[in-house]
């Protein structure tokens, strides 16, 4: 805990930082000690290594350690010690340890480079590695899933497309509503409650091929970190989780390239140094190539059709002496589907960021600007309509990390975001100037500030922080008004929601505040060390969310639009409490964690039954306020190294929703809404979810791996009766999500074989060809005779057995 003296020093350092004076920062440091700091990098890729343990000892003997610190999320470490001779060593799972002797008499920079261990050699190492922070009993971090893409890319995947988001679903607490979506549900949250950050930019809809694949090209990705709870204060804007995806930095030593081809896509990546190691760059691309064969089609329509997606990733780092390290990151991904004279659609993300970071002694300072855009269009040539929709966010951030030695680490920062949502514009496809119908764009500014402190006292490590954020929606905009301010009313006698009575429009000019919200988000986690290899952890976080995806289906689609809070929509607020236990065994080869969590969120939304939400400029007339709650137990056993590595995860969970309709009678909870206002299972509620992933590397040539997944069938809704109306057959449906699909289980296997610079991969997804129902539906039988409505129930499954093969070269 910081003493008053520390606090005074802190204020001085803060002041000095914002004044930009390195000398001033150093002036307030203690003079009796000297500082060792630097980056830990990978020898193969030059990427920084996050979460590496840096130990400082009097000699190379393991029992003479005087200090241990971890590299931060920039791969940077810093500590101060009395002058002397030290051995500084960095260790990280998957890498051979590496160290250097240091004669410390003044502040010194010591960068360490670790070589990735071959999987075969890894089994022979006896030295105890440090564990990733989420599985590390010594860290206060909890409710986190971390992995490096190179460590999991041998796991079997659909069509050989290694997908970090798919890998996440093999960990407890992460699920999807079906096999065909890369939208994840974390601890009972909706897909749009996850903040997805690629380097420093938000990504709004990371889906290709309507969700079959995520937009993250594994060739360009290094680390993946998912915060399921106890979310650090530097993050805000989403109420369930934060997914951080880090792109590779590129090789600082030499030019390197890789290429691969699989059944779905071809990829290539290039990287190399800038100057003599002052920086690096990386460019990676991927594109599906199936459409190249369309030209051979005899069908003229197909010949002119377009079906493809691509990604382009870019990253560059450059050290500029006296200024800091610049990091430029960019990403473009796009899907296109076009059928001549009929339909065309395209959607994609574009995101970019520039960050400069610099260490001022104990202060690690970052300034970031980023931009992210998601847009789509759908043109229906046959009816001469084109719909265009877009969301764009501009973001500026100042983040500071101050190493306070015995007083811990202090993080603080200021963020500002500007959002613009263009929900929809309707144009004539033939003549874009004609017949425009535009839903007014929505604009907002969101300033935020946070501070978070982590410190250890004896066996106790405490991290606590606070985030304060505002959301100010501004004009120009024309806002529909309703009688009594109620855009949606409930008709008790008709038993249905109905639009409120319109009462004119309110015009807001540019800069006018339409509505504004603010709130505090406390975050805290506590770790209590039980033994040297086990600890208890407790975490709490409150999160607020002002943007949301307008989606009325169980899985988001790329053609959903985003909306923001405003006069008729309040921010969502979630609270999560988690309790965890972590232990390691066999010198860190194994780790086991158990967590129990409870989560509740208000200010969520549902839609009136049958609501038409596409291109609806008055969504408030079909939006029903709702709330959610979830709880669960998650168990994860991981084996980190050896010939066989992998994990088994299990979760027992419940995730529920309820209409949150204000009760006008004052008689307590209202019985209005979906399922009579009662709690009901969310569409992604899985009671049991078991997943195992195993990677076996018997030698340097062969690798075998397998996944197995078992999950309770997802909730669904059944009709309880039928009736005829307007010439069609309709269902009188029972309670929403009151029934279950059959249980889900699946086995995937893959094998890899190295040939010099190449690697051949075979995979089989859904190896025993299980028919896993993704949805069940009830319908008229097509062949019914006139006037007779025969009915049937059908289950739909996305993937049977899917074999794959791919080949990868590296140079």
């Amino acid at each position, binding site marked *: 805990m910081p003493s008053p003296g520390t606090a005074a020093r802190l204020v001085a350092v803060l002041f000095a930082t914002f004044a930009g004076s390195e000398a001033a920062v150093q002036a307030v440091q203690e003079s009796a000690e000297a500082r060792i700091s630097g980056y830990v990098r990978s020898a193969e890729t030059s990427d920084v290594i996050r979460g590496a343990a840096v130990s400082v000892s009097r000699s190379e003997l393991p029992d003479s350690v005087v200090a241990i610190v971890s590299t931060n999320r920039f791969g940077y470490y810093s500590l101060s010690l009395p002058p002397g001779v030290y051995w500084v060593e960095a260790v990280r799972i998957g890498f051979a340890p590496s160290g250097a002797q240091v004669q410390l008499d003044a502040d010194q920079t010591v960068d360490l480079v670790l070589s990735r261990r071959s999987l075969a050699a890894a089994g022979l190492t006896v030295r105890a590695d440090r564990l990733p922070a989420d599985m590390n009993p010594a860290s206060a971090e909890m409710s986190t899933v971390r992995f490096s893409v190179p460590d999991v890319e041998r796991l079997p995947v659909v069509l050989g497309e290694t997908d970090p988001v798919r890998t996440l679903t093999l960990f407890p607490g992460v699920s999807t509503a079906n096999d*065909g979506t890369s939208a994840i549900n974390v601890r009972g949250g909706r897909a749009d409650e996850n903040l997805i950050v690629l380097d420093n930019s938000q990504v709004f809809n990371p889906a290709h091929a309507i969700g079959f694949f995520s937009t993250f090209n594994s060739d360009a990705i290094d680390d993946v970190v998912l915060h399921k709870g106890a979310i650090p204060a530097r993050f805000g804007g989403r109420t369930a989780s934060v997914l951080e995806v880090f792109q590779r930095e590129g090789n600082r030593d030499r030019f390197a390239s890789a290429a691969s081809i699989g059944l779905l896509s071809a990829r290539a990546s290039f990287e190399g140094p800038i100057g003599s190691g002052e920086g690096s760059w990386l460019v990676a691309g991927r594109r599906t190539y199936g459409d190249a064969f369309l030209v051979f089609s005899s069908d003229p329509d197909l010949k002119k059709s377009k079906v493809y997606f691509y990604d382009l990733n870019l990253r560059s780092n450059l050290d500029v002496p006296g200024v800091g390290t610049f990091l430029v990151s960019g990403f473009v991904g796009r899907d296109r589907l076009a059928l001549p004279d009929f339909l065309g659609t395209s959607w994609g993300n574009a995101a970019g960021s520039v960050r400069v970071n610099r260490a001022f002694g104990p202060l690690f300072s970052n300034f970031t600007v980023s931009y992210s855009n998601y847009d789509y269009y759908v043109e229906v040539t046959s009816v001469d309509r084109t719909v265009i929709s877009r969301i764009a966010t501009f973001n500026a951030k100042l983040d500071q990390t101050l190493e306070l030695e015995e007083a811990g680490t202090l993080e603080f920062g200021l963020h500002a975001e500007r959002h613009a949502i263009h929900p929809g514009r309707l144009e004539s496809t033939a003549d874009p100037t004609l017949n425009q119908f535009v839903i007014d764009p929505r604009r907002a500014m969101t300033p935020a500030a946070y501070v978070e402190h982590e410190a250890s006292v004896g066996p106790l490590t405490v991290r606590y922080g606070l985030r304060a954020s505002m959301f100010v929606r501004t004009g120009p905009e024309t806002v529909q008004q309703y009688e009594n301010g109620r855009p949606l009313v409930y008709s008790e*006698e008709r038993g249905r929601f109905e639009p409120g009575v319109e009462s004119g429009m309110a015009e807001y000019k540019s800069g006018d505040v339409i509505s504004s919200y603010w709130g505090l988000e406390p975050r805290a986690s506590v770790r209590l060390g039980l033994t040297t290899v086990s600890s208890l952890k407790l975490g709490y976080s409150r999160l607020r969310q002002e943007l949301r995806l307008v989606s009325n289906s169980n899985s988001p689609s790329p053609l959903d639009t985003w909306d923001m809070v405003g006069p008729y929509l309040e921010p969502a607020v979630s609270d999560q409490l988690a309790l965890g236990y972590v232990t390691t065994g066999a010198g860190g080869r194994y780790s086991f964690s158990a967590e129990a969590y409870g989560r509740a969120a208000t200010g969520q939304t549902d839609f009136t039954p049958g609501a038409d939400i596409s291109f609806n400029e008055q969504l408030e007339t079909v939006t029903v306020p709702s709330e959610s709650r979830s709880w669960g137990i998650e168990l994860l056993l991981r084996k980190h190294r050896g010939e066989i590595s992998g994990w088994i995860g299990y979760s027992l969970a419940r995730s529920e929703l309820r209409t949150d309709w204000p009760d006008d009678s004052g008689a307590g909870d209202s019985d209005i809404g979906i399922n009579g206002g009662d709690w009901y299972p969310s569409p992604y509620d899985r009671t049991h979810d078991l997943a195992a992933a195993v990677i076996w590397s018997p030698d340097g040539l062969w690798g075998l791996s397998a996944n197995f997944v078992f999950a309770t069938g997802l909730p669904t809704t*059944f009709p309880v009766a039928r009736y005829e*109306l307007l010439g069609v057959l309709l269902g009188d449906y029972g309670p929403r999500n009151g029934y279950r699909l059959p249980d889900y289980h699946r086995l995937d296997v893959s094998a890899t074989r190295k040939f010099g610079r190449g690697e051949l991969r075979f995979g089989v997804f859904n190896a025993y060809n299980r028919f896993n129902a*993704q949805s069940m539906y009830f319908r*008229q039988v097509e062949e019914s005779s006139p006037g007779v409505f025969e009915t049937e129930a059908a289950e739909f499954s996305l993937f049977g057995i899917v074999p794959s093969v791919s080949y990868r070269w590296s140079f």
Partner: protein
Amino acid sequence: MRTDAESSTGPSGLTVIANFRERFNFRVMYVSRERFLRLSGVPALAVFAALAASGCERIVDVELPSAEPRLVVEGRVELNRSVPGNSGAWVRLTVTGDYFDSSPATPVTDAEVRITDQEETLAELSLVDPAEGVYVHLDGPPLAMAPGYTYQLEIRWDGDTYLSDVEMAMGTPIDSLYFEWEEEFIGRPAGLRVKVDYTDPPEPGHSILYELFLNGEPVISPVPGNEFRLVRSDRYRPGEEVTGFAPDPLLDPDVGDRVTVRQVGLTTTLHDYMLAVFEQNALGLGNPYSIPSATIQGNVVNSTSVNPRPLGYFGAHEVFEATVVVPDTLIP
């Protein structure tokens, strides 16, 4: 304005020809994954073909819970501007049945049905088709009919009184009705299409329900994507001159066939209700992106007690219709 309506037998044979169903699931502003896969599933695209072949459905036996029967109301007051003799009021009453019981809907034959207009004219409807449960206004003074006039439906049945109040929706005249040959197109075969030209009135708020009759029999193509043809709203383009609109892109009449198209005026509320009805039917494909299934609540209420809630709707409509016969010069 007041138009004296003749009593009419109304369309009593509500049989439906559902031969035009097909399985492609596209709708105007939406591409489903199913569609995406199928479109990609050409032989040259081995990968997507593999996916399309593996993404499949199977018919299953499911034991469904059953529910107490509920009254289903389909009630209309129609002011037919094109064929005044077809103006009148009719109500069809049935009850819900077990979902998998494909026998015809059980008609309600012992109800008292009356409609009152805003001038307090009371129309007693009599059961004319016991097999279908259709009640028609045959005797007594005609209802006052004009757009904007209000009507109340009252049904007494099984100890409960069911009520609904509506306002007559303005209709949209048909400027022209004709046929055009269309070549084979993705998702539908080549054939003759019936096309409508009409001019939407300048002020917004006009919606249309399309009803088609082939040689006098009602036809409907409740396929995915057609929900936006079966009902149309002028929300995005009020006052538009619409040309060449095909209300049923699957109807393929032969030479000599007589096709009638009715443009039935809808209030916004009824438009939304009917869109939900057709959408639920069209979404029978049930892809993972479909909206949650839910019972669609109509505008008829049980005034005796909240439960059992009735299903269905009561509407008052200004109707325009036109009939054309397929000439032998159009089919190649």
